[in-house]
């Protein structure tokens, strides 16, 4: 799921053709198909599902396990971001492929790849839980990584040319350039996006830690699987306990990690922020004053001193690597990589075609109909979301006092994984006699609405004061002011928010359209529930067809609806022109 502010940036700079997208998507699917095929060939041993203890005493341990998975995935995301972003920002040729690829990755329903991933990983490590753990971490990773890469890539592209020239004039090595020029400029965006990413990564936790594939049950001990089992058994008190544990974990991570990091990252700000209070963190203050920090500073100085000794600097005299030699090597390497990827793609694509041939015409028709149903559901969910988020966002955003008070609260609420709330919301709405096919839309909205709210809020607080004063002077009041000032001003932000929310809602349909509630299986007709059912029945051809359909629909919607809308918003309603 993408961060609001960053989502459109790269896509705006690059306008890849539909052809590139389709080719890349095909390659991606081919890869997954290959992985599934690999998994099928390996005879996976029958495994006992881990028993989950539903007593509250077991929860702290489970929560810590889940947290460690989140962090492992985050470290992976960070490493991936640094490498991928750097390559994309430095090589014009690589950029042409890497950025559209990222755009697609951000949009496609990654949950659809879970079965293939799990089977592949379990096959790689047949005797232990390692494979399952890795699959779970990789799934969390796919929920985290996108906006981090976009942010980092965007920051690298935004490094002022003159700073790069300074680095060259003063002969920075690549590491020093990377550290001092590139990463330093990206820190603020990266920290902010890391925070969003961590939140996004939790979204599918209940599924990632416990899911069924055909007659096999894959389960890992964690707060997500605890919740899954509680839902399955209809144990309400266990559900509440899981929600409490999750909330505490999010709060703790926010206070102990993100708040200090945000406060620390302020030193990388380009300009002093006028007037407003800089972010602070009590934890950071504590750490800075601590004995440990003093020792660290001292140690660093010692290391620097050692490094500055002439003997250690012999490398300065080393002749530079011949530019042509390096180039040839790189071309050869890229060529080999391209060849390997190409071969894999061709093999996988043929596998995919073979697999899709098993899908009957009737199933395709059903898929098309379910696509329509989910489309209506997402559209409804987005409208519902806009309906309350636009006025609420504008009201909060117009009042500096309220936006300062509410923003951190909304942030915490938004980082709570919505699927954990599904059973409770469903219970309430079922009691009100709402049909489940409508409830599913509400569930989809539950996670997605925050993107709309955040963006509208940001937009409303960015309305210049002089426009407000002008409206006052010319007596543009009440509804007229909303129509003439507020709504047009937040429009670009609303579009960005809706784009992200739409992606989130489509992805969420996979978990929202099917729900086991108090032992009773609820299902709403839609593409999401089709994919879930195909997974549970281990019907791989149908699963592949479903995921393919959804990805194609998402890419098509992006190109035909969201991009043009985004461009319109940028050209007509942007306030900075």
């Amino acid at each position, binding site marked *: 799921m993408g961060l609001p502010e960053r989502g459109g940036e790269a896509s705006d700079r690059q306008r890849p053709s539909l052809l590139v997208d389709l080719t890349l998507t095909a390659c991606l699917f081919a890869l997954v198909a290959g992985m599934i095929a690999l998994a099928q060939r390996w005879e996976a041993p029958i495994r006992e599902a881990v028993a989950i203890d539903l007593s509250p005493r077991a929860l702290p341990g489970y929560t810590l396990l889940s947290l460690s998975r989140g962090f492992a995935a985050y470290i992976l995301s960070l490493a991936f971001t640094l490498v991928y972003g750097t390559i994309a920002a430095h090589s014009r040729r690589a950029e042409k492929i890497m950025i559209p690829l990222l755009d697609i990755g951000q949009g496609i329903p990654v949950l659809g790849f879970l079965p293939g991933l799990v089977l592949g990983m379990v096959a790689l490590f047949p005797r232990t839980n390692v494979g399952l753990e890795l699959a779970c971490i990789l799934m969390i990773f796919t929920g985290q990584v996108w906006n981090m890469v976009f942010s980092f890539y965007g920051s690298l592209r935004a490094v002022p040319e*003159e*700073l790069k020239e300074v680095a060259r004039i003063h002969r920075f090595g690549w590491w020093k350039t990377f550290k001092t020029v590139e990463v330093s400029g990206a820190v603020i965006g990266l920290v902010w996006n890391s925070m969003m990413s961590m939140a996004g990564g939790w979204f599918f936790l209940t599924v990632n830690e416990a899911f069924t594939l055909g007659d096999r049950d894959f389960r890992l001990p964690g707060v997500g699987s605890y919740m899954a089992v509680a839902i399955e058994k209809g144990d309400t008190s266990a559900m509440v306990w899981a929600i409490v544990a999750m909330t505490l974990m999010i709060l703790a991570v926010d206070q102990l990690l993100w708040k200090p990091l945000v406060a620390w990252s302020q030193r990388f700000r380009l300009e*002093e922020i006028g007037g407003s209070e800089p972010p602070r963190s009590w934890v950071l203050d504590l750490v800075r004053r601590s004995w440990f920090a003093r020792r660290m500073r001292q140690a660093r100085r010692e290391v620097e001193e050692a490094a500055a000794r002439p003997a250690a600097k012999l490398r*300065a005299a080393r002749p530079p690597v011949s530019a042509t030699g390096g180039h040839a090597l790189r071309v050869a390497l890229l060529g080999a990589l391209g060849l390997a990827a190409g071969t894999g793609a061709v093999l996988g694509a043929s596998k995919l075609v073979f697999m899709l041939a098993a899908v009957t015409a009737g199933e395709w028709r059903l898929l098309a109909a379910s696509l329509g149903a989910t489309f209506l559901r997402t559209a409804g969910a987005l409208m519902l979301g806009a309906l309350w988020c636009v006025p609420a966002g504008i009201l909060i955003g117009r009042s500096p006092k309220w936006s300062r008070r509410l923003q951190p609260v909304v942030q915490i609420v938004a980082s709570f994984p919505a699927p954990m709330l599904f059973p409770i919301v469903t219970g309430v709405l079922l009691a009100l006699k709402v049909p489940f096919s409508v409830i599913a839309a509400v569930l989809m909205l539950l996670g997605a609405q925050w993107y709309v709210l955040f963006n509208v809020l940001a937009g409303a607080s960015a309305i210049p004061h002089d426009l407000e004063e002008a409206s006052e002077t010319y007596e543009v009041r009440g509804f007229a002011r909303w129509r003439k000032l507020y709504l047009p001003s937040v429009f670009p932000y609303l579009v960005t928010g809706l784009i992200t929310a739409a992606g989130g809602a489509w992805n969420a349909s996979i978990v929202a359209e099917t729900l086991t509630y108090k032992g009773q299986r609820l299902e709403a007709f839609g593409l999401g529930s089709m994919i879930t059912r195909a997974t549970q029945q281990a019907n791989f051809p149908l699963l592949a067809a479903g995921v393919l359909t959804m990805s194609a629909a998402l890419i098509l919607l992006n190109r035909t609806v969201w991009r043009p809308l985004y461009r319109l918003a940028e050209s007509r309603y942007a306030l900075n022109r």
Partner: protein
Amino acid sequence: MSAALEPTPRPDAPIASANGVGKIYRDEAGRERVILRDVTFAVRKGETVAVLGPSGCGKSTLLRILIGLIPPTSGSVEQHGKPLTGIHPGAAVVFQNFALFPWLSVEENVRVGLNGRPMPLAEAEEKIAAAIERVGLTGVERAFPKELSGGMKQRVGIARALVGGPELLCMDEPFSALDVLTAEALRAEVYRLWSDGASGLSSILIITHLIEEAVYLGDRVVVMGANPGGIRQEIVNTLPHPRSYRHPEFLKMVEKIHDIVAGVHLPDEQAASTSFVGRGPCGPVRPVPAAPSSEILGLLEVLSDHGGERDLFELDSETAYEFGHTIAVVKAAEMLGFVDTPGDLVRITDLGREMVAATVPERKVLFRRRLLTLGIFAELVKFLATEPDAPRRGEEVRAFLSEKLPGQAIMDLFRTLVGWGRYGQLFDYDARADELGLFAGRETED
């Protein structure tokens, strides 16, 4: 400079030189733009050189080519008589917008200047402290750039450049982002740093668009022109140091360079005012300078308020535009026949007076008539008139323009043409759709 990095110098060879250097950029549409053409230029030991020119003449590009930041498209670059590979080992650069790392303290920023030069820590500290002291930054070592004023920031930039003891200090419009008083103070300090010899500085290359600055610092003033960028003339400045702005000899030198610059930028236009009634014959197809119609009108108002004529450089100092821009406005007004430029003077013509006296709708009619005397407008109207009812896509129009006027910055030209055409109610332009058509709301009376 540490001895290890210095090449064996040929005593007579210049520190840095460019021989027949050219630079061509390709824009996104693949059109070529000539930035520099056939530039031969050198900086020798112990001299200060000022490169003077309007924006877009490639002077910053020349600096970057000279020190190896960007490669030339043609020609060769040498340092101490040898081909330059990589970055010039003895050069340091002070940038227009300071180019400090916002996340490094003043001290750490200055330390950047010592990067890649192995030396004991104590020695490095000493050099850094000395550089900081020399530019008067003592006391703010631990501050971050964002806490400093523009002048202080540029002092950090200078300290960073000086700390490594460069033989050639390159400055790319180093004072133009500062207010007048701060710029003046820093200019004097740079001069002092160079003249007292304590910093080990041998030569200075300064890029500027201010004639006074060039005369104040440069022993040689190199005047560059644009389209294509190149050196138009070199003037040896033998005024004794230290120079004073008020000294009659100084003023004389400024005057002399003014005349040269004016000759370079304002070669007398073929007076288009011979037939200012009616349509008149079309001139040749030439590019128009990037001057908005509102500024052309403003120029006419100013001239008419001052009895009809002004010295070009008085005008320039009053407008506070960048030097090249004033010239562009004057040149545009001259092309349209509203002013004459005998020598350094800008004189309003009868047509210009008529324009000033006219009402708003009359002005538009007058302006439109003048536009139609320009070859490029005549061509453009003809082009648009082939399908008078359908507006043309901007991309088509720009392709047409670049065919007529190759080597121009087409987007700028397009914008100016559209601006003038809109004012004269000759064109309709829909910015959202990027479509240009003939103005539809007017009776075709002229």
